[in-house]
């Protein structure tokens, strides 16, 4: 499971001040649940997820992946985490088998287990014909399948998908979406980010609306609809963004 407490991430700006990309973010996500971080580009989704994967260190706050703190137990956090994004590259001169084996070994998975898992996944995702071709010759869809297998080669309990369908064609995107559903069925804790409302609507058990680094609202789709009085998720989203802007205005006027 994922537990996040008051996470803050700031980046230094050129003029010496700093930019707060993630502002006091807190939430939880449990096993067998798909949680969606919904927000426009630059809302802080990727930064938040990079903190979970220990690529970034937060200024304050903490998060736990399967009970391991991202601040002090980076190794264990990464061991329990599968990470997939829409635009990751692959090593062009390796073939899928070598590529997946490389990451499997880095995660400390035994060679025999890696082989078995590749076979299983290849059957499932129909990858046999290109398992031994160099990655540079594969299509985007094939590459994305390879990335999927890479992300679960160590059978992590928590999966994080950062804009997993960004830049993919419809057929490839479908593969990913069915894979995310599959993860839920296997009782994994799934967190994914998107700016596409339909994707959130179709997949998520709970939606967290994030804007300018802050969480504006969170809950099931039904709860959010109820709170906002809107039915379409687009309208729901805009409602919460406007509400936040109003609050800031009010706060400013009180001074």
């Amino acid at each position, binding site marked *: 499971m994922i537990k996040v407490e008051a996470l803050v991430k700031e980046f230094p700006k*050129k003029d010496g001040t700093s930019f707060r990309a993630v502002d006091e973010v807190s939430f939880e996500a449990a096993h067998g649940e798909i949680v969606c971080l919904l927000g426009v580009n630059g809302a802080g989704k990727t930064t938040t997820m990079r903190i979970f994967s220990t690529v970034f260190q937060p200024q304050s706050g903490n998060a736990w992946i399967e009970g391991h703190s991202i601040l002090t137990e980076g190794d264990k956090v990464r061991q329990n985490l599968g990470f997939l994004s829409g635009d990751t*590259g692959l090593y062009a001169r390796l073939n899928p088998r070598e590529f997946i084996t490389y990451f499997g070994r880095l995660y400390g998975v035994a060679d025999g287990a890696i082989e078995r898992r590749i076979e299983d996944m290849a059957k499932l995702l129909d990858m046999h014909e290109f398992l031994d071709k160099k990655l540079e010759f594969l299509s985007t869809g094939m590459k994305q399948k390879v990335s999927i297998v890479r992300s679960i080669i160590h059978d992590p309990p928590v999966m994080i998908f950062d804009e997993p369908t960004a830049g993919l064609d419809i057929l490839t995107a479908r593969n990913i979406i069915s894979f995310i559903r599959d993860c839920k069925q296997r009782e994994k804790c799934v967190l994914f980010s998107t700016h596409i409302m339909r994707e959130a609507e179709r997949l998520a058990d709970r939606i967290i609306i994030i804007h300018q680094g802050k969480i504006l609202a969170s809950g099931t789709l039904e709860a959010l609809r109820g709170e906002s009085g809107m039915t379409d998720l687009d309208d729901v989203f805009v409602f919460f963004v406007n509400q936040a802007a109003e609050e800031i205005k009010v706060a400013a006027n009180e001074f």
Partner: protein
Amino acid sequence: MNFKKALIVYRKELLELLRDRRTLFTTIILPVIMYPLLFMGFSAIMSRQSSILEKRGATVAFQDSLQTRNEATLAVRDSIFSGLQRLDYVSALPSPPHVEQLYKDKDVNAIVTVSDSLGNVGPAKYRIKVRYDASEEAGRLLFGKIEKSLTATAKNEVAARLTKLKLDKQLIDPFRIDPVDSSTSEKKMGSVLGMILPYIMILTLIAGAATVAADLVAGEKERRTLETLLVSSATRSEIVLGKYLSIFTVAMVNVLINLFSISFSLRFLLAQSGMGTQGLQMPVKAFLILLLALVPLASLFAAVLLSISTFSRNMKEARTYEQPIMMISMLLGMISFVPSVQINNLLALVPVVNIALLFKAVMINEFTLAQLLITVGSTLFLDVLAIWATVKLFNTEAVLFRKEDDSSLKITRANKRSFFNSFYGLVYFALALAALYYIGGKWQSKNLIYGLEQTQVFIILLPVLLVLRLLKLKPKEILRYNLPRWQEAALIPFIAIPAAIVVAILGQLVNLIFPYPPEYIAAMEKLFNQDVSLAMSFFVIAVLPGLCEETLFRGFLIRFFEGHSARNAVIISALLFALFHLDPFRFVPAFLLGLLLGYLTVRSGSIVNSMLSHMINNGLALFIVTFAGKHWLKPLLSGKDSFHWWVGVIALAVFVVAIGIFHKITAPREVKQCAE
């Protein structure tokens, strides 16, 4: 740190590199085919050169311009001509018509003209003019042959004259030169190889490392694979280690393949040319030492290039940053071509140069264990530093995730719009340094004292004031021309004097290991023992530098680097100050002094503190040199002008207390300044 994971990274990188045709070509295939082709080309050209005369032959026109024509002169003329006729591949024509035209058309390659006795006194003397084209290889070869023939004829003529005078013919040869070469064939080979090999080894080492380094991190950033790797359970240190080992391996493999290819081609060439390889043995033991010494250098290059790759956003940027490193390394490696430079303990500290010179010394088996250890040790030290920096860079998210809109060099970034940015600071410093070297040096070589004064005022002080004037900036504010509080100023002697003593004792310690060369000491003594009054010396050595150098370094240049932090500004200005002395022996003392002076100025907000301190520091040196012989100074000194070590202990204690008080009493001002 799990070494196994580093090895997994290492194996994968090597596998990828082996599949990269470009890497494979430059590190393995190119050297294997390049040297044989190159050497064969050379040998073809060389054999062609020597056979030019044999194949084409040459024609020499022989002209007779004798005035006095008697039996004796004609006999000499004939013997000269027959000497020329006897030359191999050369035909000699006696007085052909239209000789000028023939020479122009190259039907005749040289014209030998014999004319008469020069002067009427003494035995007959002939003048022989040889016209040839020295710009052509064939012309030079022909001249060599003609000269040899003429010398032989002359010798015969002398012999004839001696016989006539009834003297012994042996008189012509008072000497017989009998060269006995004591060098072993190993040493002979070593001295030749010692010149070329270091350069080739260093060149191939860094070239090999550079082919792959850019790809390993910057390439991963560019292809968006880095994040996947970071998310895996390998730690950053494991990733760095794996990648570093890959670069190291490629660099070493590249060197070995190049060396193998060179030695193979050389042997082939020698065998073919019939010279034989007997006696031309590669000194095997030397070779093994070299390979060992090469390991830390390979490791250093690997770490430096990896840190560049880590810092760069993409491969193109990485290649750009690699260029200066490669240029500098190659230039430093060329030191082995300079015949008179030999390794010593001091040069053993300079990276790349030390390895190049050590190679040279090892090849002729003239090196000490200390030199080997210092070379390996200092390279290893830098190596560890570079690896540490790489790991640190790899852990800095701002570096690993630099965005496209960041300007590429971080130091040029701070306050790009304001005049006081790091880039302009470095440009100003470079200009001042050039002026010091070219103009100041000239002034000082004319008249040392006067030249020093001119340098301080016209190169160091006035340009600063002029620049501020042009930019309409307030000198008082920018240069911190503020009066210090009396407590601060009163503390300065208690800071400056002990500091100077401690630094002097450090210098003495260094001198034990790396003695100053005698010419350096002589130059220093010359500076302090000028034929001028003590007051004048004090003015030139202490007062002027205190005013002018402080204005430049602690007043002006330090301002360019304050964008990041005051501490960085102090360190950078101290570094520039040390460089400005253009003197490797004074680099460390000047740097330490620069740190202190920078601190005093920035901390107190008054440059007067550092001016006073600088004057005291320089004045003290003058004082010691001037009064070293006096009995009242004797108890402090051991030897001519070095301090006893216990003086250093006292000085250090006084310094620590004084600087502590200074730090305390300047604290409130610091806060006030920040608030401003």
